[in-house]
């Protein structure tokens, strides 16, 4: 327990100042190796713990633990090909909505803390409120996806890996046009996992 003592200017230090002084003081009791080993071990525990918590927030169960997601977007998504398909590959909420690489993931998670404010304020707490906000929310996500060149789509999909010959005629044609015009996935694939918002304009559609 750090003691409260007088500083050089005669003022008394607080508890925080005492802790800071203790931390700055060289250890006379433990060897550098011990300190390093302990720091390393504690670091692993903290880092692992932090990442575990972050990954926990990427789980489907976490996303639908709030009724706002469970009753609206989740219900729609379970009727789409990203939920159930011939090959059994499922894309969860975070696969599309959270970047995989650490830097972008952390930036997105920090940004997502805004959603806690929305939760507390009940911004989309009823189906009516959600419908009223759906276009704004969708536009925000489309903008993010467009800005990243549909990075999350491309975690699984790529033009290189695409066999257009195996596609239906209209998909083949659209993908040929998309390649030619250097378009990105979200330019066309809006509303593939959730209902398109009411009031969506042609400008929204064309991205």
């Amino acid at each position, binding site marked *: 327990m750090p003691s409260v003592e007088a500083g050089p200017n005669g003022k008394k230090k607080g508890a925080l100042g005492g802790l800071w002084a203790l931390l700055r003081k060289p250890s006379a009791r433990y060897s550098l190796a011990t300190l390093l080993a302990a720091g390393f071990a504690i670091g692993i525990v903290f880092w692992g713990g932090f990442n575990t918590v972050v990954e926990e927030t990427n789980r489907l169960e976490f996303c639908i633990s709030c009724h706002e997601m469970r009753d609206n977007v989740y219900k729609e998504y379970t009727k789409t090909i990203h939920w159930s398909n011939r090959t059994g590959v499922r894309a969860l909420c975070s696969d599309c909505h959270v970047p995989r690489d650490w830097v972008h993931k952390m930036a997105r998670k920090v940004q997502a803390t805004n959603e806690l404010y929305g939760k507390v304020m009940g911004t989309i707490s009823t189906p009516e409120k959600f419908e009223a906000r759906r276009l704004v929310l969708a536009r925000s996500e489309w903008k993010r996806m467009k800005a990243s060149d549909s990075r999350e789509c491309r975690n699984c999909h790529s033009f290189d890996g695409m066999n257009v010959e195996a596609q*239906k*005629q*209209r998909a083949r*044609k*659209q993908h040929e*046009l998309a390649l030619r*015009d250097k378009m990105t996935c979200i330019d*066309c694939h809006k509303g593939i996992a959730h209902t*398109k918002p009411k009031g*969506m*304009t*042609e400008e*929204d*559609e*064309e991205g």
Partner: protein
Amino acid sequence: MIQRVLVLSAAGAALGMMQGAALAAPPDWSKVPAKTITVFYPGVSPLEWVTTGTEHGGARGMKKGETCASCHDGELDDMGKKMVTGQKIEPNPQKGKAPSIPVQVQAANDGANLYLRFSWKQPPGAGGAKMDPDNPVKLAFMLEDNKVELANLGGCWSACHADSRTMPNAKDDKRTKYVKGGSLASGKFYDLVQWRAKGKPVDGHVAEQRVMEGGKALVSAEGRNDGGTWTVVFTRKLAGGDGDVALVPGKTYNFGFAIHDDHAAGRYHHVSLGYTLGIDAKADITAAKQ
């Protein structure tokens, strides 16, 4: 002798005057190549729907100049199934109605007339109410001279609108096909010709509104049903009057056709996508000189 010459001269002059119409003789169809064009049940897909990207993803392709056929001509039966059963854009599903009908289309010309032959197997009837009790079958085709907006991509679709009669949002029972900004004077119109199982054929046009008369180009439209296979042959002068698209060798025209199958009326027809018809010119369907 002089008398004989006079008779022959008179006969020659008469023949000359009758050129075109009376001398029109369809070619030997067995020597004319046939193209299979599938007509399909289109549900409620007026031009306004087709060109709205939030409803129809292909609107983007159309803005880039792609034809409807470039995306859809291989899946017309699937599309027809979705619409006829009400799975998509059809609030009034047509149980038992054929999703699509493959039609053999042949075309030829003889320098004076265009000959068009359509042949298809009568699909099973739905057995529902007869919307047009007089006509079990009607077949209409439209021609357009590259002036109506989007007719080069979507054929007849530029004449099909959300407020036309029998559409869910129709307010006026007399509103039929029309071309936005269309007029005979500007050349923005479709030439419309229809054969009916009963009654006279129609030679009209579609501009500000649909007009089922006034055309001068149609010579004849004849159809018959041989053991369940319908064959309809049109003979039409290349030249024409008001409301007729004058056909010139070496040129191509936008072309589409529709079958009102099983006593259908209004929008409940089977339609083709847009194609090109060439008069001695390379096109989706070429009417070569015989």
